[in-house]
């Protein structure tokens, strides 16, 4: 005869854990640790929520150029940055390379340059080069020179990484458009902060207003249960 489970103890423990981990409705607005390495996982490769989220974090009147590195697979699958889509676009320096190693090398070079406003890199897939050591190097370099770094990962599993904040992003139903109920409105994203130093992980619905360059985190958790965010190759 098997040992009967002890529901009371398990449940209390689970409740306590939930309280500690904060997987319920989060309490505060999450902050990206700006002058360091932040990692963003995009659930579907064609989704522009990732780049949108990164752009929303850049300061509005950025007078320094932004180095934007893409590997060729990311560029082919998700397109290239388009300045006309931004209310106040920064100066962009776009670098296209073929290998993930080159992305990391270029990112490291960029993070050593204090004249840059930010360094954003897009890496496709689980490249073995993007490991704990590499991300640690990037994080330390970003902190040493106070240049914000963003690593956008597509079709990748969140393996071990030294990024100070790690996010998972997908699109959420857009806000209602003001004049047309059938039209898509302002962007909304399903944001999950699943690892962060010094703050509570959680889930939010972030809405972004393009005109005012403001991002709002709605603490109200999504009504539905957190969907399993599938990783799917293009």
């Amino acid at each position, binding site marked *: 005869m098997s040992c009967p489970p002890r529901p009371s103890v398990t449940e209390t423990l689970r409740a306590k854990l939930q309280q500690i981990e904060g997987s319920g409705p989060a309490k505060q607005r999450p902050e990206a640790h700006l002058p360091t390495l932040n990692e963003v996982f995009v659930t579907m490769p064609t989704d522009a929520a990732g780049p949108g989220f990164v752009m929303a974090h850049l300061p509005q009147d950025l007078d320094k150029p932004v180095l934007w590195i893409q590997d060729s697979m990311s560029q082919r699958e998700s397109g290239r940055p388009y300045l006309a889509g931004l209310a106040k676009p920064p100066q962009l320096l776009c670098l*296209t390379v073929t290998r993930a190693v080159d992305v990391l090398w270029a990112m490291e070079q960029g993070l050593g340059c204090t004249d840059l406003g930010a360094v954003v890199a897009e890496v496709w897939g689980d490249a073995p080069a993007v490991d704990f050591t590499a991300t640690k190097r990037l994080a330390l370099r970003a902190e040493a020179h106070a240049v914000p770094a963003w690593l956008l990962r597509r079709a990748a599993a969140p393996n071990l990484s030294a990024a100070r904040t790690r996010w998972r992003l997908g699109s959420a139903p857009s806000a209602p458009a003001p004049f047309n109920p059938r039209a898509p409105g302002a962007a909304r994203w399903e944001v999950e902060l699943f690892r962060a130093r010094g703050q509570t992980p959680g889930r939010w619905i972030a809405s972004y207003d393009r005109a005012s360059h403001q991002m709002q985190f709605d603490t109200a958790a999504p009504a539905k249960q957190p969907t399993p965010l599938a990783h799917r190759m293009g």
Partner: protein
Amino acid sequence: MRGEDKLPVLSPATAPPQDAPSESRIKAPYRARRILSVHMQHFAMERWQRTLTRQGDAPPEDVPQALATEGPHGRIIYATNRAAEAAGVHINARAVDMRALCPDLKLAYADIGGDTRALEALALWARRWCPWTATDGLSSSGAGLIMDTTGSAHLWGGEAALLREIEERLSHLGLSSTLAIAPTHGAAWALARFGAVRETCSADALEQRMSNMPTRALRLTADTLLLLKRLGLKSVGDLAAVPRLSLARRFQKAELPANPLLRLDQMMGDLAEPISPPEDPPRFIVDARLPEPVQDPTPHIPDLCAALSEKLAGPGFGARRLRLTVYRSDGQISHVEAATSTPSRNASHLARLFEGKLERIDPGFGFDLITLAAHHAEHLTVSQPDLDRRKGTGDALGQLIDRLSARFGPGHLRSPALRESHIPERREIWAPAMGGLPRQPFGSADARPIRLLDPPEEVRVIYAVPEGPPAQFVWRRITHKVARFSGPERIAPEWWADNPGTRLRDYYNIENQFFHRIWLYREGILDDHRGPDPRWCVHGVFA
């Protein structure tokens, strides 16, 4: 005093040309030199043809072709090829008139700035024959070079051999030329344009030879030439026979290019006209001579860069392009190049530009001489740090651009700039960042995606109604169902840039079942008689 000889009013009337040569040599102190003049009548056209030939786009010889410049009343012919010349197209005429004369005349714009630079480079190249060379005018009537070959002609086997050599070398460059050597600049200029083939003229025969030259050979302005023609003075000899005092009085206030007396004095050697050659551009080259052949140049790069930057720092230059050359022991030479976006003489920065490039050098059995040359250098002033000790801006950014461009190629690091166009893909211009960053762009108020697919990807759609948005579509093997949409936004083709058959585009902004916001368009409308059924393409993704 020689200075008094220069003043035309004070000097006595020039003796007629049949004077004894010994006497004229005393009176003309500036005849001792040997001046070589090169006249390239078709310089602009030949350079243009050569440029096109190099691009693999050689224009056919038998098609009339002309280069034009902007004039006050439309375009003016600047240079012609042989076919156009034979068809009667003449220089300095209006392009529309010449089009009437020769309807299949092809016109292109003349690149006068490029011609000037090419002529200056040619003048420096001509220093192989003598140390004093300079440009001598560039206009629609051709380009000229002037050289002082005094004491250097014998090195080339005499003056006749030198003239042949120069003409041959220029013809290898695709330039036809006429040349002459004479004791003065003015006489050489005249003989190169109006004399015999490769003519040389000695100091004794100068007056004799010049007397039957036309007055056009005096380098005068068109107004003065017209005036002389009206006065009945058709040749240099006619002019020389006129009493000097009256000429001096008549042209007392005229500047040098309009003063026939001064020009005559220059031609005859009574007035000094030295050639003022530009200085040689500084050359920055350092070398490392190795005691025995080595296979790997890497350990020598830092020292070479340090030596080069020291050399650059002296006259205040910074390197823009570097070339590292290795001389192999078997006589072969190979080189790698690097470039910088802003002038730099930072040794460690220059050394890092060669990182990852040295593998391309084929060392063979080793090499024993390495040279590093800055073959393109620009002025670089010393920049002072700010009062609060911050470094000057842009330096580190320039170095980053150099490093990334050197590693991945200048075409891979690009910077977009916005321009005025409604066609989404023409809204941005992508230029290599090596050419400098564009100004900070202004955003637009239109709803545009933040990612653009280049090129647009065609999708299969299922219509609800043919004129509206699709009900669903298949993109990258996934069926997207349209949940919400807005549009259409109609963007018409740019008639001034597009082909006549280009179709308009209706853009829709849709949200699918995954809540992705996709920008797609239908190219054309159903019965616009501009081709088959309209295509649908995904062009971008909204945030």
